[in-house]
């Protein structure tokens, strides 16, 4: 890894090679072949086995949703190198022709450069963020008045289910994976991720998963309408579109497991000389713990969706009460992933906030080690609280109090982080740039979301509030006021690094204030209607909630509109922004010590890490030096 690579451009392909070489042209003919396999295989088996009907839609669709994405990935070249290797042909020296982007076209290819992949991730996830947001505005239009206006209950439920599924699986989780992808190797002083090809593959799974969820909505016969939680047995008896949901979640989950493995190996083995664990920036720590959560927990949601699929397609009875299935088993497995998932959706944000607050306050992160340790505490405790989503579900009664206690205790490490951020700002020189505003917005909103979480951890209060709009308010304070604000903070903070240009600060601030105000007007009143008695996931509701719902709907349209300011700012600044220079924030971490955007293999010279990453205000302190005498290798290399 120490020698530096040459970067080649692929020789232009001509003639038949344009069709056989990896790329969109190959997608065009390989995908139909896999589509044919997806139809042929189940039909053949059913025909040979004399099962009737031979032609069964739900079975064929399920198989299709495995084969078609595979066909796409084969076509675009996701497996080329491995296939070549596995076929036993002589290894070709990688010419790095698929590394780095020369033009915008390279973003539509399988690219192994973590910086390209990072941007691919961020842009893709923002597209799904916009789709998810539009769905929310559609059902808010329906909710502006009681009774049925625009959508029947089926469509309404599809909108609600897909809004959540897209925001969770296609926006928050992968947006963090994208930012991490871009930043982590740079912060570690590495040339790339440990497994660049796996990295490329894990990105390309994502648009597949997203398209699947979107396609599910418009499936003839009806989309998935059992909520994003998709509880059995309701979800086993949904229209055909449900299959898209079951499989889409699998692909998104596979993508996130691959990325997490990649992060873990990269963080463990590819740190620059001198970068000990206790010298890693907190963003790296945060992604380290998140990745552990992902690899341990994500297989559980895969399991839950597989079992549902089996119940549907193979007529098993995992969750079918009639056949001796265990209905609550679904919820246990589902939440064993989906509670840790809230930390998967939060810890990387914690990392971003630590970076932003330290740099913008010009102070070291307060209690760095405790900050890292509290992440680890959340990781461990995070696996012991899942059943707080099931206090009214009818599970074993004794399980409630222990789950309440662990859920309460997890507030302690979270509190440590909040107090430490506040202490980091104390006596600082705070610059209220857009990332810092989003960090402060996050801090205040996340405190509210955390406190409403305490209410919900208390079993008696949860019994009153669960499945009401109070829950909707809580999760949006945590996932919007929390995660989404941190994603915005991260995007603004690293925008100059990614594009080499500065975003428009005035538009950034406008975006922040519109979002912050729109957010609170939309979600704060939901606490009230929830406690008063409005259940979630209903298209129609009691007349006494009419005025306040109208208010919420109007506010939500404002909130949605604020995103336009963001999109405009990003598009405009990417093209015409002021050149940003290597280190516009005067930050110490390694990603800012190289040009913006960084050289193709990140560091023309391997940095030697000599100190902590946040030594602001310490005279003469350095995180890393370049051009040091060649160091003894540290760790594996």
């Amino acid at each position: 890894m120490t020698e530096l690579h040459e970067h080649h451009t692929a020789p232009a392909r001509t003639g038949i090679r344009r069709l056989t070489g990896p790329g969109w042209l190959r997608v065009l003919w390989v995908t139909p072949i896999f589509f044919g396999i997806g139809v042929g295989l189940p039909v053949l088996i059913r025909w040979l086995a004399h099962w009737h009907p031979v032609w069964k839609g739900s079975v064929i669709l399920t198989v299709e949703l495995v084969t078609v994405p595979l066909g796409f990935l084969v076509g675009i070249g996701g497996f080329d190198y491995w296939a070549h290797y596995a076929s036993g042909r002589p290894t070709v020296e990688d010419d790095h022709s698929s590394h780095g982007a020369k033009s915008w076209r390279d973003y539509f290819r399988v690219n192994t450069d973590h910086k390209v992949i990072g941007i691919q991730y961020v842009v893709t996830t923002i597209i799904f963020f916009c789709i998810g947001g539009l769905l929310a505005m559609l059902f808010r239009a329906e909710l502006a008045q009681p009774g049925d206006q625009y959508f029947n209950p089926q469509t309404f439920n599809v909108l609600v289910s897909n809004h959540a599924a897209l925001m969770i699986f296609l926006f928050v989780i992968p947006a963090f994976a994208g930012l991490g992808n871009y930043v982590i190797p740079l912060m570690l002083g590495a040339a790339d991720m440990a497994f660049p090809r796996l990295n490329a593959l894990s990105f390309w799974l994502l648009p597949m998963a997203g398209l699947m969820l979107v396609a599910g909505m418009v499936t003839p016969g009806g989309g998935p309408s059992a909520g994003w939680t998709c509880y059995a047995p309701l979800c086993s008896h949904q229209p055909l579109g449900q299959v898209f949901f079951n499989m889409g979640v699998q692909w998104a989950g596979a993508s996130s497991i691959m990325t997490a493995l990649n992060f873990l190996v990269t963080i463990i083995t590819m740190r620059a000389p001198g970068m000990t664990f206790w010298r890693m920036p907190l963003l790296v720590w945060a992604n380290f713990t998140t990745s552990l959560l992902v690899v341990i927990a994500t297989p559980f949601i895969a399991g839950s969706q597989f079992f549902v699929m089996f119940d549907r397609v193979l007529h098993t009875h995992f969750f079918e009460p009639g056949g001796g299935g265990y209905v609550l088993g679904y919820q246990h497995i589902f939440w064993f992933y989906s509670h840790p998932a809230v930390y998967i959706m939060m810890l990387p944000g914690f990392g971003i906030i630590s970076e932003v607050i330290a740099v913008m306050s010009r102070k070291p992160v307060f209690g760095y080690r405790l900050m890292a340790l509290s992440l680890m505490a959340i990781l461990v405790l995070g696996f012991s609280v899942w059943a707080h989503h099931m206090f009214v579900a009818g599970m074993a009664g004794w399980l409630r109090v222990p789950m309440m206690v662990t859920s309460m205790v997890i507030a302690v490490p979270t509190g440590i982080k909040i107090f430490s951020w506040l202490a980091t700002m104390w006596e600082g020189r705070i610059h209220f740039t857009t990332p810092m505003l989003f960090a402060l917005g996050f801090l205040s909103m996340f405190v509210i979301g955390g406190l409403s979480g305490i209410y919900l951890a208390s079993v008696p209060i949860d019994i009153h509030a669960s499945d009401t709009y109070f829950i909707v308010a809580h999760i949006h304070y945590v996932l919007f006021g929390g995660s989404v604000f941190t994603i915005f903070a991260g995007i603004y903070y690293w925008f100059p690094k990614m594009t080499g240009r500065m975003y428009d600060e005035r538009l950034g601030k406008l975006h922040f204030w519109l979002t912050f105000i729109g957010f609170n007007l939309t979600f704060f009143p939901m606490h009230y209607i929830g406690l008063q008695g409005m259940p979630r996931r209903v298209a129609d509701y009691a007349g006494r909630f009419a005025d306040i719902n109208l208010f919420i709907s109007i506010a939500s349209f404002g909130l949605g509109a604020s995103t336009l300011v963001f999109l405009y700012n990003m598009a405009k600044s990417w093209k015409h922004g002021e050149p940003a220079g290597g280190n516009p924030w005067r930050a110490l971490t390694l990603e800012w010590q190289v040009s913006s955007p960084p050289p193709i293999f990140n560091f023309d010279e391997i940095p030697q890490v000599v100190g902590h990453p946040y030594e602001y205000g310490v005279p003469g302190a350095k995180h890393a030096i370049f051009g040091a005498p060649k160091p003894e290798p540290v760790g594996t290399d």
Partner: protein
Amino acid sequence: MLRRVRRGSIFQLLGFAAIAAVITSLVAVLVPWLPNPASDEAKRIHFVYWFTTVICIGVFAAVAAVMTYSVIKFRARPDDDSDGAPIHGHTKLEIIWTAIPAVLVTAISIVSAIVLAQNSRTGSHPLVVKVVAVQFAWKFTYPNGKSYGYLTLPKGRHVKLDLTANDVIHSFWSPELSQKQDAVPGQHTSLVITPSRTGTFPVICTELCGLGHALMRSHVTIIPAAKFDTWMKAGGQAASGPPGLAVFQENGCGGCHTLKAAPGANGTIGPDLDKLKQEAARAHQPLAAFIKESILKPSAYIEPGYRDAMPPTLGASIPAGKLTQLVQYLEQSAK
């Protein structure tokens, strides 16, 4: 120097904290966050709620004060390139802000656990009401074997609901009673309610259970215990009426439909069954056939202005003899 700054800043901090605490307290007190409780359990839940709120206001005020202070005091001018004080941590402070929240959440946990235990206590002779949830209706069955689509409970007595579901998961909740419990197919769950106030309150399903979920509403009427006993003895008033009325009551039709002849049947989710004659005429069907089809195959004809929300399996679950009685009864009462 540092000392002086600190003393001044502590006063200012306390000032900010006080302002934040007053504002949040006003928001907590002036907005009627919770419905007026109608059961002992609800009152206890409200106690936990207020206990938690007091603690949360304290925490919120502290955070808000430090944040406001920092934002005002430590703002740097854009051209200020200096760095802040290189403070790396403060062990004592870190111990304090680990310990205090730990104590606070422990306190909330203890209070919650006690209330949970109290709220699960049925007493020695609870009134047991069997609750069966189906898409999209409730059926409440009393010890005397009578069933209704709505719940009638005696004030001041322990009631134990024994819940189950026939198809998918539903959840029983009445905001005024606070207690909530999922009804799970293939399993029995229970819920304790001790009504403390007479009146009629909504019952809603809070677990997404399909297309009619939003309409899976009923109500609970709480009456004085003495009145309840006569009501029970009278077999819930239906015993005196024609046999079809009993079938009507047993199957919870009144939760969704209005029918003057049937006491308590004042639902509005389905059409008014007193107007069946006109409705049958509109569907161009003879009255009896129309009624029978409407019960057995509700989706075959949808009354204009209503949704296809009548439980499709309800009709099949009624024995043939009883179904005939029911159809006759509705036919009679419509004439």
